[in-house]
């Protein structure tokens, strides 16, 4: 009878030993990568840097529309109707901004994801076995991306928390306006020596000195640092790299997107999953669009026509000077599925076909890169800066006329624009005609102090001076008690 005790004991021993040791509970990673083995390789680190490029471009599915959208709905250029987003966009149009408004996080989260990934790259550079030259390049690219994302946040929301490492405490307060400006400027200036010249970058789409200078120029312009703006624009012109593309009508097409005028773009590529999609044309096609009579453009069955309609205001459409080639990309009539010709005039319904549809597009993603900075912008920016510094001058006017000639318009004379104000007002008009649908209008109007007055003139009685800054999204405020909302919200 004692035997059973031995059996029992051995059984219990097996029981305890059976499960083995701690290794049984170790989590084996299969489909995901861990920092220890991943951030120590060049491929790994580069891959994280590329992710920062991707979120900087911010062209996932409909983001191409809703990053540009708020910069245009709030201006004299455009309105919207239709689809499930109408109520939301109406709040942009009518200046009833609220922190819970949709598309605010579309402009808050992706920049901060880019910044996070840039910080990860910067912190792990020393763990990777590459040459110092390569390290300097990665460092410069990461800082470039980080700086331009802070610039975009700054123009949208004002000063924001500046995160420069992943080990900082999670809750940071907003920087002051001065800190923000200093940071953006010093970072962009610091990367200039280490970035390649345009044309020498490892692949088209990676950072180069042209882009860094371009963002500096725009930054100086929008912060009204006229001398620095004028000088930086001159530096870009002196690179002798960029020139105006001769055909405005075809410049924005996919086949021409590698043109000598684009300095920095948000790249797009037609693909079914719309990961890098230009979706602008989907919301510009009028209902039942079949053909555009002037150009002969025919709707392909592979394209999509959203019931979401982005419509150009008549006041803007009618403001073009006669013969302005830039107006041709705004269509005023079309032929629908039943063969009827429909006029879009006099109904605030003309459509911006700036991003001409991509024959390769399948579904809602077209491949037209969206220019963020192009040479025409540099020319007009310098003209504006010179005007603010010295008043109207022939050199400034020449720059404007260079842009006008490309638009097949005649030259303006100094006698047409005798005062600083007149010159400035004309530049505002010129910039509208040149840069509609490119997401520039709101900043231009704010800079020239016309944003609120123009809204009031359009009947948006709710517009107030506080509206030059969008509210910080409510979800960001509740997650970080140290954030203080912009005044008035």
């Amino acid at each position, binding site marked *: *009878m004692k035997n*059973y005790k031995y059996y029992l004991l051995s*059984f219990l021993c097996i*029981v305890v030993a*059976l*499960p*083995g040791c701690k290794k*049984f*509970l170790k*989590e*084996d*990673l*299969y*489909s*995901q*990568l*861990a920092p220890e083995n*991943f951030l120590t390789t060049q491929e*790994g680190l580069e*891959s*994280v840097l*590329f*992710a920062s*490029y*991707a*979120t900087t471009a911010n062209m996932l599915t409909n983001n191409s529309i809703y990053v540009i959208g708020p910069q245009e709905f709030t201006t004299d250029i455009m309105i919207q109707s*239709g*689809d*499930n987003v109408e109520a*939301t966009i*109406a709040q942009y149009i009518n200046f009833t901004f609220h922190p*819970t408004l*949709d598309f605010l996080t579309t402009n*808050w989260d992706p920049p*901060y*994801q880019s*910044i*996070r*990934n840039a910080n*990860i790259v910067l912190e792990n550079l020393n763990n990777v076995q590459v040459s110092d030259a390569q390290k300097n390049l990665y460092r410069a690219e990461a800082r470039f991306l980080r700086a331009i994302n802070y610039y975009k946040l700054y123009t949208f929301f004002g000063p924001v*928390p500046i*995160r420069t490492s992943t080990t900082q405490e*999670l*809750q940071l307060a907003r920087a002051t306006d001065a800190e923000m400006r200093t940071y953006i400027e010093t970072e962009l200036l610091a990367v200039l020596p280490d970035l390649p010249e345009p044309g020498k970058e*490892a692949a*088209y789409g*990676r950072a180069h000195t042209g882009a860094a200078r371009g963002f500096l120029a725009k930054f100086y312009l929008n912060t009204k640092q006229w001398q620095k703006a004028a000088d930086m624009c001159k530096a870009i012109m002196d690179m002798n790299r960029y020139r105006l593309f001769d055909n405005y009508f075809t410049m924005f097409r996919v086949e021409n997107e590698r043109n000598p005028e684009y300095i920095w773009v948000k*790249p797009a*590529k037609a693909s079914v999953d719309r*990961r*890098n999609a230009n979706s602008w044309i989907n919301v510009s096609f009028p209902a039942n669009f079949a053909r555009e009579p002037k150009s002969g453009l025919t709707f392909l*069955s*592979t394209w999509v026509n*959203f*019931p979401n309609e982005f419509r150009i205001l008549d006041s803007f459409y009618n403001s073009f000077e006669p013969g302005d080639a830039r107006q041709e990309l705004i269509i005023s009539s079309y032929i629908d599925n039943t063969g009827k010709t429909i006029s879009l005039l006099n109904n605030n319904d003309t459509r911006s076909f700036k991003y001409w549809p991509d024959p390769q597009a399948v579904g809602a993603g077209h491949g037209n890169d969206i220019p963020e900075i192009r040479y025409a912008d540099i020319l007009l920016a310098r003209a504006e800066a010179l005007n603010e510094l010295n008043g109207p001058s022939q050199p400034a006017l020449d720059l404007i006329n260079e842009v006008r000639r490309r638009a097949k318009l005649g030259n303006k004379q100094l006698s047409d624009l005798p005062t600083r104000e007149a010159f400035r007002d004309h530049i505002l008009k010129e910039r509208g005609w040149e840069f509609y649908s490119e997401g520039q209008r709101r900043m231009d109007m704010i800079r020239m102090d016309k944003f609120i007055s123009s809204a009031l003139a359009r009947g948006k009685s709710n517009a107030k001076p506080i509206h030059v800054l969008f509210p910080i999204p409510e*979800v*960001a405020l*509740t*997650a*970080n008690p140290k954030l203080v909302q912009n005044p008035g919200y």
Partner: protein
Amino acid sequence: MERRARKLHVSKPFLLSLILFALMFVNRPVQAAGVLFTPLQNIRVSGTVKDDAGVTLPGVNIRVKGQNTGGTTDANGNYTLNVPENATLVFSFLGYVTQEVAVNNRSTINVTLLSNVRNLGEVVVVGYGSVKKRDVTGSVTSLKREDFNQGAVTSADQLIAGKASGVQVVQNSAEPGGGISVNIRGSGSINAGNNPLYVVDGLPLDNSAAVTGSSANFLKSNAPRNPLNSINPADIQSIEILKDASATAIYGSRGANGVVLITTRSGRNGALRINYDSYGGVQNVAKKLQLLNATEYQSTINALIDAGGGTAAQRVNTINNGGTDWLAQLYRRNAPLQNHNLAFSGGSENTSYLISLNYFNQDGVLINSGYDRFSARINLEQRVAKKFRVGMNISTAYSKDRYVSNGFDLNERAGILYAAINYDPTLSIRNATTGRYTLSQDLNIDNPLAIANGKTSFSNLYRTLGTVFGEYTFIPGLTAKLNLGGDIASQRTDAYVDRTTIEGLAAGGIGSVLQGNNSNYLAEATVNYNKVVDKHAFNVVAGATAQRFIFDDVSAEARSFPSDATVTDNLGLGTLSSNRVTSSKLNNSLLSYLGRINYTFNDKYLLTTSFRIDGSSRFGSNNKYGYFPSVALGWKIDQENFMKNLTAISTFKLRASWGKTGNQEIGNYLSLATFSAGNSAVFNDTQVSTTTPSRIENPDLKWEASEQLNFGLDYGFLKDRITGSIEWYSKDTRDLLLNLPIPRETGFTTRITNIGSVRNTGFEFSVNSLNLTGKFKWTTNLNFSTLNNTVKNLGGISSIISGSAGTATNISIIQEGSPLYSFYGYRVLGVWQTGDDFTANPTARPGYLKFFDKNGDKVINADDRVLLGDSFPGLIYALTNNFTYKNVGLYVFIEGVKGVNMLNNNLVDTYFPANLKRNRLAEPLLNRWTAANPSQVYPAFINTGAQAAQAVNSYTVEDASYIRLNTVKLSYNIPVRGKKIKSAGIYVSGQNLATITDYSGFDPALNPNGGANFRVDWNAYPSARTFLLGVSIGL
């Protein structure tokens, strides 16, 4: 070691005799003395041995106590023996209670042996063992085959719906084999699972689908088809639902949501029994939605345009061929279903087996959907040696699911229900000239029949699961058991979108193949010890278990095929550049030690205590092991002397328990910082893949802890003619896994953290009454339960607002003091009328909905939101009545729910359509506000976009309370004579016969959103009304 073994082998019979000798001294000292010391005469004894059903038992072992003589019964159950006249005969047979019968000079002794393996009504299965029902200290609902739901049942979940108080079974999709969510005593979790742990014959299941991804351009339901479908419900002998911590703590980190123990049928000793059960029937959509028909649509849309709600270009001018009722085109009339079950059971003294074969086929009430299952099971038990028995319970099933594209999406991505509800009813099905499906010029939705017929998907699922065990008895009362289990599921889902659809035409056909393998393996060793000393009875269980879960999948997607004919059978024909391929692999492991002591004193006072240590690979490195204790007390007051006189009260047992359990359904790898695919970048006009961090690491991550207090009273009156129980419980779930919002400037929006707590409390009441027991029998079972769910603590977050479906966004709020996922929206006060004072809301117009302006700022916006109800039913109740007269039986089952809300998202689409030309529900439109007929209830439906931000409101969040006549079954037991056919029966039944509810959607009992605690009804697959005819034959 060998010498010892040999020695053991030789001494076995002596050992046995010694043990029996010893037992004789313990139990019957006087008689033992008599057997040993008095020489006696031999007499001849004979008789028949039967079981409690009157069936003769061949092969029963009969031994003369104290001697090495005896015999067995023959094929007819008869025996004849020569034994001493005062001998005691010991009758024993595997699966039956051994009986000792004193000869006492009788020459004929007939014996009835009682089955003991699953002694129905007497024994309740609990975790790692079983307990007599009278001695249960925890809250356990035990359901046997006769308690299950009758009628057409696809899975184990449906067997228990409405049968246990405190258990809420919610159908997520009414499609054949559709998903089901079960909540036991409310929901404690926000981000971890809320479903209970399912254990089948001792094997804890990972009840998740093998294929988790989605097919390209094919919409799938929010809840996958129920994985439990692979287990044939007819194979199930009993289901025990463990509800309180005392019963579930032995499952440690998986017990927080309750445990459902499924025990499959075991073989029956004796001659071969064959049972054939079959039913067949038809199903039709139980309730149809009333949309505007073609004429109503035309007049309504044109009237809205006349009133300024649209342009002349949108006028409806023609109705083609009388129009089309799109929903009706999707319904399949009299969709058939059938089930065939064939079971063989039998055995001998040392063996018992059950072989069961099943075929189930169900066509859905919507076209092109259905479910088929072929399953086979073998349950076998064999006594290999005196002390050693082995057994196995293995089943395998092949399931074929046929899907229609339907779910939570809209417009060009919509499924069939959304398309049919929104589509223009004035159109014909096909274009007369082209023959293609008609497309609406105004709506960016594909033709509903194009989606239904042009998008096809099916899946083949193979699942084998089972356990193999060996149990060794050291000494009587001390056994050791080794249990090995496995559950292996392999599934392949194909989907094809052909050129008759818009997306298929544009892409040239889209095909996808998803393959997933989900398996888990279990190794478990336990020791069980029973001991009775005087008035003390002990039962001790101790053991260790290890389980490993492995998942891997791969998917491939191709487009642009030369022809639709090859569908998904040759993806290589697609265009290379559009191919998409993914794969993934996960695993996790559990390592646990468990122990339990059951102590009974004087058969009156009960104490149970259990402890489990669980280590899980999912927990962060700082918290790898969790500890889960529980203790329960019971007092059988009916056994007390002062109660013995109250004969009316036959059972009166008080129970109290407390315990801690955990929820480890927190997902894999969440404590680690890892990198996964980011959005692609574009360099040199080529898309380049990137990687991005998935999360901030959290080494403190651990299980959600649940602490539960339970008080119960089990009562029985009039010799247990009326029995039942009353319970109250309070369950606190702490360390909730919350995606704690962290500053979004970190690049992350949340970090998974254990913080926050939720409390569920409620009452459960059940009564089972044998009202009439004479010729006319009538039994009633009534149960109801209340539930109160409150969020206690959100760890500093003020609120979590989440949930979106189509136009409705920010649907629910989680905040302290309210139930989880409370609906959060606007209160409708009525409709603005002409002549009203509009200064209170300057943007409103006559005919607009009038909303409650909470802060009085004359603007209706997000600051005016209020709580609009929640998805937790205040009261769930069910009433079953069974009537039997002679051979006729009538079964009536009524169930209902009170105090629950659901967002009717199809109603939201009616109030706030994306486009004027969308079709909608008829009633609000036909009774809408017009200047001539100013309604106080319905708005004018002009310029609906202006109020679309108020989509979640007190109109669209409806009361989903209902009472339903769930099943009525009339059965007839055909009286059979003769030896061949032992039993036969026939029945008719109807399911989902009538529902009383204020809810305006298809079915208030469905939750298409998935889960049970956040109810959003959108494009629900409609429920069916089923009529069945069934037969059963026993041979």
